[in-house]
């Protein structure tokens, strides 16, 4: 039961976190996911069968996963695409990613064919579930109608838009 509760907390935390800053609950996403991870690895009397092997497998992957995730955050956050590049963060990030390769390689080398086939089948099953979910969204979107037409801009709003456009486009035209 604890395994499923922790899985629920991790899933819910990820979903809340991905909602973005316009929803207040998004700030609770990461803490909830972290509580789920703590629950997952905490000793529990009922995690004997069959989830115990999954928890063991997750525990053995924990080191390289943490290295890969934290390294990715550092590299992406310090990349020139998202502002000023930061070579120190990029360097530390790459050290973490290479470390994750170091920790993950033994489990890759000892990968059994039966387990790999189970993994491929599991991923295909996951994609099938995703397709069913997408089908549900497609049907829901197809049945929805336009709620209404928004009102035209008021005098103040028109003036505000004009000011913004003149400031942005006007200054660029002056530069040219």
């Amino acid at each position, binding site marked *: 039961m604890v395994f499923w509760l922790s899985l629920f907390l991790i899933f819910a935390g990820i979903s809340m976190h991905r909602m973005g800053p316009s929803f207040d609950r998004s700030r609770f996403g990461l803490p909830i996911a972290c509580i789920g991870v703590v629950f997952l690895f905490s000793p529990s009397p009922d995690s004997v069968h069959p989830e115990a092997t999954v928890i063991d497998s*997750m525990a053995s992957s924990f080191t390289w996963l943490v290295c890969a995730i934290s390294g990715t955050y550092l590299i992406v956050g310090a990349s020139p695409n998202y502002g000023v590049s930061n070579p120190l963060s990029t360097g530390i990030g790459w050290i973490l990613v290479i470390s994750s390769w170091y920790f993950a390689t033994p489990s890759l080398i000892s990968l059994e064919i039966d387990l790999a086939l189970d*993994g491929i089948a599991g991923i295909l099953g996951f994609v099938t579930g995703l397709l069913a979910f997408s089908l549900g969204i497609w049907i829901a979107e197809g049945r929805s109608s336009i709620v209404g037409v928004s009102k035209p801009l008021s005098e103040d709003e028109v003036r505000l838009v004009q000011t913004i456009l003149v400031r942005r486009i006007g200054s660029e035209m002056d530069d040219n």
Partner: protein
Amino acid sequence: MTIELLPILEAFSGGIIISSLFFITHIFSSINPYHKPLFPLASCISMIIFVALIVSSTSDESVITSVRIVTSDAALGIIALLPLSLAILTYFLIGQTFPKGRSGHEPQ
């Protein structure tokens, strides 16, 4: 060497259950006034019920235990293959670190 089909089908079923559980949790935790959750929720629940019935019919265990076993099998397989995703991740991170086609000046 022979490859048995039943464990593969069980892992496939487990994958469907994992994704359906994930999306049901996602629907409830990200519910908002603009959501239309009825059809996505119905499709996920019907997938779980359908798979649970199939899985329990191939096993002597109860429905709940069968679902737990196939879900664990699928999760084990996916976790075993996760290190392969490091190769894809590394490829994208190289692209982030050394972006192509940049003229050298930052956007304003």
